């Protein structure tokens, strides 16, 4: 928030916001982090085996969250819009993936390995295309006309869009949870001292990491990525040097939707999805993005892994643990704490127009 005062916002408001933060606040923050570290260490000493098992679960979940969190961060970077509908696009895409797997390919537990790999590959492509299309259509239909309107108007529209997409999923897939058979075996990759790591968990990382590398390459090294970064910095200046801002925005939404597609497929293979899965998942992903520093791609991944770990530790550890009843409160409490104490997130830079 202090960042907002820099650059464009001049003296008075800046002076109001930039006044030295009371030391008590940072002290509270440090104490909080200290207690958290203590809690982790005690749990590690008491039950080391559980600790590492839970750690690996959290890492896997965190990677799936990362794919959704990147969608928030990409769009926020370019439009300063919290794309509320993103979580619901994620869920809708996951449901679409279940249709592909169960209805189009008709895969079952007994399907052969080659068939499964081929079908999942095609599904991945279809799902990425689907997510990208849905997200781009949403941008064209709902957000595009409002780009010049106050930002809050855009946010309200996004909230409305979220409900709309959720109900489209409800109309198409009804209220039941959709799950797919376990294609990737739960056999151990390694097992050290009672800590098991299964193939189905490793597969998530095996898919996510290349996707993240590709994304980094795309944003850092391609022409389109350069255009995205320029538009994020200053749309007016970007337009002036000949960048097609509209196309860049559409591309960003497509990219976010495609990442959601990958994430949704992985999520479907691990857990189950129904029409309203996207709401909570979206908020978790958004929290991850904020935790890492919104607009920062590495930050989103780091934040997502952190949130995944926090969730897993909270639900899996035994000593002085609030338990899954409180997961939501913890995630949101963390979100509020970050926004209040460190709005720029873990890795966020204090740039002119981004917090």
């Amino acid at each position: 928030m202090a960042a907002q005062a820099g650059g464009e916002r001049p003296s008075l408001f800046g002076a109001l916001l930039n006044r030295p933060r009371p030391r008590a606040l940072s002290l509270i923050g440090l104490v909080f982090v200290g207690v958290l570290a203590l809690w982790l260490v005690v749990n590690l000493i008491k039950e080391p085996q559980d600790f590492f098992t839970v750690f690996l679960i959290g890492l896997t979940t965190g990677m799936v969250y990362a794919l959704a969190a990147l969608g928030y961060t990409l769009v926020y970077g370019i439009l300063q819009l919290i794309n509320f509908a993103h979580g619901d696009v994620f869920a809708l895409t996951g449901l679409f993936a279940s249709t592909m797997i169960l209805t189009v390919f008709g895969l079952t537990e007994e399907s052969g390995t080659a068939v499964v790999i081929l079908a999942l590959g095609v599904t991945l492509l279809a799902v990425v295309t689907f997510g990208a299309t849905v997200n781009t259509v949403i941008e064209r239909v709902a957000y595009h006309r409002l780009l010049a309107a106050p930002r809050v108007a855009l946010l309200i529209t996004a909230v409305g869009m979220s409900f709309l997409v959720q109900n489209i999923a409800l109309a198409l897939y009804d209220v039941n949870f959709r799950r797919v058979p376990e294609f990737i075996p739960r056999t151990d990759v390694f097992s050290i001292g009672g800590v098991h790591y299964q193939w189905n968990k490793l597969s998530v990382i095996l898919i996510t990491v290349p996707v993240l590398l590709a994304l980094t390459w795309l944003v850092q090294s391609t022409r389109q990525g350069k255009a995205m970064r320029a538009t994020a910095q200053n749309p007016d200046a970007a337009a002036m040097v000949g960048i097609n801002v509209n196309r860049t925005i559409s591309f960003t939404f497509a990219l976010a939707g495609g990442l959601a597609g990958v994430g949704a497929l992985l999520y479907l293979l691990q857990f189950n999805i129904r029409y309203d899965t996207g709401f909570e998942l979206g908020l978790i992903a958004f929290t991850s993005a904020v935790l890492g520093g919104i607009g920062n791609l590495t930050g989103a991944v780091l934040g997502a892994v952190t949130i995944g770990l926090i969730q897993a530790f909270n639900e899996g550890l035994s000593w002085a643990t609030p338990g899954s009843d409180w997961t939501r409160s913890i995630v949101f409490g963390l979100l509020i704490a970050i926004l209040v104490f460190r709005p720029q997130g873990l890795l966020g830079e204090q740039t002119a127009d981004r917090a």
Partner: protein
Amino acid sequence: MSEPRGKRAPKRRRHPRSQGSLGGLGERWRTLPPLVRRAIPLAIVLAIALAYPFIVTDLRGLGELGDFFPQLGNVVIILVFTVMAVGLNVVVGYSGLLDLGYVAFYAAGAYTAGWLASQHFQQWNFHFGSVGISSETTGIHLSVWLVLLLAGLFTAVTGILIGLPTLRLRGDYLAIVTLGFGEIIPQVVRNGDDFKDFNLTNGTSGINPIDSPGFGQTLNDAVGLPVSFQQSFDRERLYYWSILGVLLFTLFCCVRLRDSRLGRAWIAIREDEIAAAAMGIPLMRTKTWAYAIGAFFGGIAGAFYASFKSGAFPSDFYFNISVFLLCMVILGGMGSVWGVVAGAVLLGWLNVEGLAVLGSKFNEAAGTNVEIAKYQFGIYGAIIVLMMLFRPTGLIPERRRKRELEEGVHDQSLHAVKS
């Protein structure tokens, strides 16, 4: 009626046609003093509202058309939501602070009623102005009228506590933080049945029964007012007139606040925070007041609803309610009190009866079997999107707001993108 402000000269050029057919009625209407012109429609609406309990049975008997008139019990619910929408309008409409967690205040109000007017706290026995129950009954039993006020105050304090650390954040972050609180508070309520063996909220089963308002034996003997609403034959009518009174009080407060120094400060902040600060408006204090006052009415409405339903249950408080209330404000017109009332009554009706009625009529006509009520939140979402796209000022726009949106005096935007 949407703008009961200002002493402007009547605009004579507006309805040149009305003179002929109505025999000069329009001309005579325009010569009336502005105060009277504003009071007449209000008085008519109020008269109909007051008389509704007496005519509802006849209205509902009107065959096909009768289905569109809601039952009295449902009107009470509609009006409870109207009070909340008008309260939310103070935060969203007047001050331009997007609040996505208003349901937290609703919950706080309902549970205050649960704590102060039910048998929940078995370990204590305290009565003050309670009606219709034996003084031997355990638990805290305050007069429900007093509880309404206390719930409002408690919720306002909650609003201040939430607001103090968060109101420094800018618009979209603030929205997310309020959303976070809106999710945390219901979860605390749901899990709050065992804080070190102290049962605060009775967990998922909620608190019930909750006492009902009334006037007590003394007033009953003296002027014949009902002892307790719950035990009266006219239960729904009494609740209806009470909530109508609460709504009128809310409307009075909100209209007067808007025209006060504080209200002008809110609008100034909404229009341009930097300029407002430069003119010497204390940003934090003014915003916190908006939060506290918005929360106050949410608390009253929550407590009233808990008393009407005779229970407070955690399943009532979820994010969709916040968006539902926001939809009322947007549909009516952010900042426009009368618009919000219209939006709230319309959407409230859709929620409690309208969608079911319209759905069955649609299914009859089209021969389909669509459960329209199932998609209610999708419909609200669509309303929000369509309103923001095509009529962001709402059905009955506030004049100021309209100018603001048309001229775009808000924060930075991507003008270049329009090209």
